[in-house]
């Protein structure tokens, strides 16, 4: 091989290195490392890591706290993803017909999405203040009982979910608006000619055509929900009595508060596995059912 050939063979490698080196260092290596750590017992301080095999997993799967966190995670996912998608779609449908000034509404509805979660969560923790907070004042005016939004284990998850939904619903709406605009009007007109009702047109034409957007929002929001940390940290820190402690929060607490690295790692591995299964599953679903044009 001539020298110039070697150089031209190396070029693609040089082009990929700036992305691949940090990717391997901060993404791939940690992923393998966490798998290894999940088979060990370690407290962060001592020089030795003890290999314990599957012990951490056995402990985890027999720990009621794990199942409680799993339950909170499922509730958090369902309680954020479904409202965000349904409300986003509903609003987009309402806005899709010509409406003057809708650009202004879009900006206002979208604005929470660009703001730091920590800052808006702090604002919401003032709104949720039990005595004079805005939320309870409104309930009071309506003649309803005050709620311990972040103090009552029955309501704390609802409080966190409201902030989460508030932050993302405008974002989902914009995605749906784009998708709705791409639905060919001649298809809908053909539906009119065939005498289809508005409902039939929506379920038979519009909904299948925007299904890639629905799938995309579903996957992205689900992965976001599994990773939610900032708002939980500011609003409730997993409490009261674990009512807002998701798997991710459990992982954070066992790693950086109680320094049980092995246990924490096994929670991380479970979380990664769930995410990958969901991604693969939705990829499969998208191949079967979504309609790309």
């Amino acid at each position, binding site marked *: 091989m001539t020298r110039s050939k070697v150089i031209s063979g190396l070029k693609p490698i040089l082009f*990929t290195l700036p*992305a691949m080196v940090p990717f391997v260092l901060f993404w791939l290596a940690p992923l393998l490392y966490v798998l290894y750590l999940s088979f060990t017992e370690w407290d962060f301080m001592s020089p030795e890591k003890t290999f314990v095999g599957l012990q951490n997993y056995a402990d985890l799967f027999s720990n009621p706290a794990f199942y409680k966190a799993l339950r909170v995670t499922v509730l958090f996912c369902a309680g954020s993803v479904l409202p965000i998608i349904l409300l986003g779609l509903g609003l987009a449908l309402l806005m899709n017909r010509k409406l003057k000034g809708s650009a202004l509404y879009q900006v206002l509805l979208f604005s929470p999405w660009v703001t730091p979660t920590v800052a808006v969560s702090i604002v919401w923790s003032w709104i949720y203040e039990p005595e004079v907070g805005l939320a309870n*004042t409104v309930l009071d005016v309506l003649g309803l009982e005050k709620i311990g939004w972040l103090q009552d284990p029955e309501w704390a998850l609802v409080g966190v979910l409201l902030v989460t939904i508030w932050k993302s619903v405008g974002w989902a709406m914009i995605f749906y608006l*784009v998708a709705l605009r791409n639905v060919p009007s001649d298809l809908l007109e053909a539906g009119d000619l065939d005498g289809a009702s508005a409902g039939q047109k929506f379920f038979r034409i519009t909904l299948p055509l925007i299904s890639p957007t629905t799938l995309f929002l579903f996957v992205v929001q689900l992965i976001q929900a599994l990773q939610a*940390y900032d708002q939980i940290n500011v609003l409730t820190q997993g409490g009261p009595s674990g009512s807002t402690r998701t798997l991710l929060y459990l992982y954070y607490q066992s790693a950086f508060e109680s320094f049980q690295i092995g246990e924490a*790692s096994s929670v991380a591995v479970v979380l990664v596995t769930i995410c990958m299964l969901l991604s693969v599953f939705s990829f499969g679903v998208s191949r079967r059912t979504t309609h790309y044009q």
Partner: protein
Amino acid sequence: MRILTRLGGPVRHLFFAALALLMAFPFYWMVTSALKTNDEIWRSPPTLWPEVPLWGNFAAAWNEAPFARYMGNSIFVAASIVILQIINSGMMAYALTHMKFRLKGLFAGVILFGYMVPATAVYLPGYLVLSELHLLNSYAGLILSNCVSIFAIFLIRQAFLQVSHELVEAGEVDGASHMRILWTVLVPVTRSSFAVLALITFIDQYNNYFWPMLITKNPDLQLVSAGLRSFFVEGGAYGLQWPLIMAASAFTIAPLLLVFLLAQKTIMQSVNMTAGSSKG
């Protein structure tokens, strides 16, 4: 819903105006609470507008914690990450779309795999890796550990795929190097994707909290979210000085709302592109 659409313009206007006000109300509440005295803010029922707006609360909050430093850190770190991501995702996407090499399939596969891994789940080992590299508590650690984004690579790859091969081949015939073709031919045609990438990345990184908080214990290196949070919890402020906390939240949020207002077209456009790149 159908009833609403049938009733036509005015009713829908009323509906959206009310909804938009409701969505924006927390921001209004933040600013007006920031202007109240500690006495007034605890009054029930609350006042919609402070009796005497105390604009000095903003200055007081600003001086009570090093917010200039926090915001400077956030802007510096976010801007550095934006530049690095533009460079490395541009080069990576170029290699994936316009170069032929043996490991291409493997690299593309590894990146796709990375897309499925939630970043937060690997924070613990990521922390240990950074500590091995002696990058904890440093700007370099904050910047380098965030300098590659799979989303960015997908977005730019998608943009490059839409550029015709002939344009690149014409450059090759003229004897231009790959670097030259990438930065003087491809990037200018796909600049709107790069603008979207820069904006989204800047917003994300400015708002970043969990990871920067884990890897920097030095208060001088804190980003604005973590700084605000420590002001909220520590500074003796928790639950006692709500007006100052609201003022601090307001100037943390304000730059982003401003960026958003100035660049809303690009940001809204980003939705179109991310939806597009997700199909790729």
